[in-house]
């Protein structure tokens, strides 16, 4: 039994259950009995939380994430694409949110058709070189974990990103979202994942930026691009460009 929450829960509950009658009947101390009762409640809370821990270890998850990222990075490097990805809402990608990395540097977003085919290499415009690579990002997968899609305002986007980063993934402590017409500014506090100067991060953004971009794109129902990403001592400042 390696789960520390289960061990803590059992210790607190059993100790509380033994001590409560002792304190009440032998020592006739109500405050100490109350402490024992609190210990039982705390122990039960810890025990119940133990069942909510993920089945696979964080190390195993990290290996899977890294393998996926390296495969995508290898593909991008091989083709020689170094353009910023455009995060598309689900309605533009056959009901599945994804990001496209245009082959051409000056990608005109207005050319993007309403619905792109669900393939790896997609043509988004009428010209022959309007081609892009469509990839699934960490953000795309996390959107499925939301109970309902967020609305197009800063408050709902902040709540959705906070729920994913803090509650589900536990990779940050808090999120602040500020919105203007064509920009979404996001500040992430105490992020556990640092920014790295690698090809994948340059094109698709770090996993944290990817999640914020995917959520914002889905909330606004518009394509979104990661314009800037700054990381300093656990703090992320992400600027997203809303493409219209």
């Amino acid at each position, binding site marked *: 039994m390696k789960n520390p929450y289960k061990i803590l829960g059992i210790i607190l509950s059993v100790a509380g259950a033994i001590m409560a009658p002792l304190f009440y009947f032998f020592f006739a101390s109500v405050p100490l009995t109350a402490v024992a009762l609190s210990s039982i409640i705390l122990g039960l809370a810890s025990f119940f939380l133990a069942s909510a821990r993920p089945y696979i270890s964080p190390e195993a998850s990290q290996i899977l994430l890294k393998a996926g990222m390296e495969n995508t990075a290898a593909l991008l490097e091989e083709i020689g694409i170094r353009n910023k990805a455009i995060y598309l809402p689900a309605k533009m990608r056959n009901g599945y949110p994804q990001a496209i990395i245009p082959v051409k540097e000056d990608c005109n977003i207005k050319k993007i058709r309403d619905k792109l085919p669900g393939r790896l290499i997609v043509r988004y415009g009428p010209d022959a070189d309007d081609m892009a690579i469509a990839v699934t990002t960490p953000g795309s997968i996390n959107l499925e974990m939301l109970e309902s899609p967020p609305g197009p305002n800063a408050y709902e986007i902040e709540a959705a990103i906070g*729920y994913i980063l803090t*509650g589900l993934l536990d990779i940050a402590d808090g999120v602040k979202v500020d919105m203007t017409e064509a920009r979404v500014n996001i500040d992430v506090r105490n992020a556990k994942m640092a920014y790295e100067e690698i090809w994948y991060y340059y094109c698709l953004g770090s996993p944290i930026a990817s999640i914020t971009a995917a959520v914002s794109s889905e909330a606004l129902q518009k394509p979104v691009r990661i314009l800037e990403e700054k990381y300093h001592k656990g703090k992320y400042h992400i600027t997203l460009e809303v493409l219209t």
Partner: protein
Amino acid sequence: MRIFNRLIISLAIAFGIINVLLAFLGQDDISVYFIVNAIAYLIITLLYVYLNPRAKSALNGLSAIIFAAFLVVVTMEVIEILK
């Protein structure tokens, strides 16, 4: 699992403060301690809205048990008063 740690620490601090405060005020009724602790538990777990669905449902199960015990204690207190 920092959010789980924060929840457990918040509960421990709240229970500690409540018990010390009630003891300091000279409270000698165990049901009062239980009622206040149960209310603190229900409020604190409600405040953790960002918990994942599995953790939420697990804590909701415990909340239901504590709430049931809370209702029993309150009903007994009311019967005592009406007598």
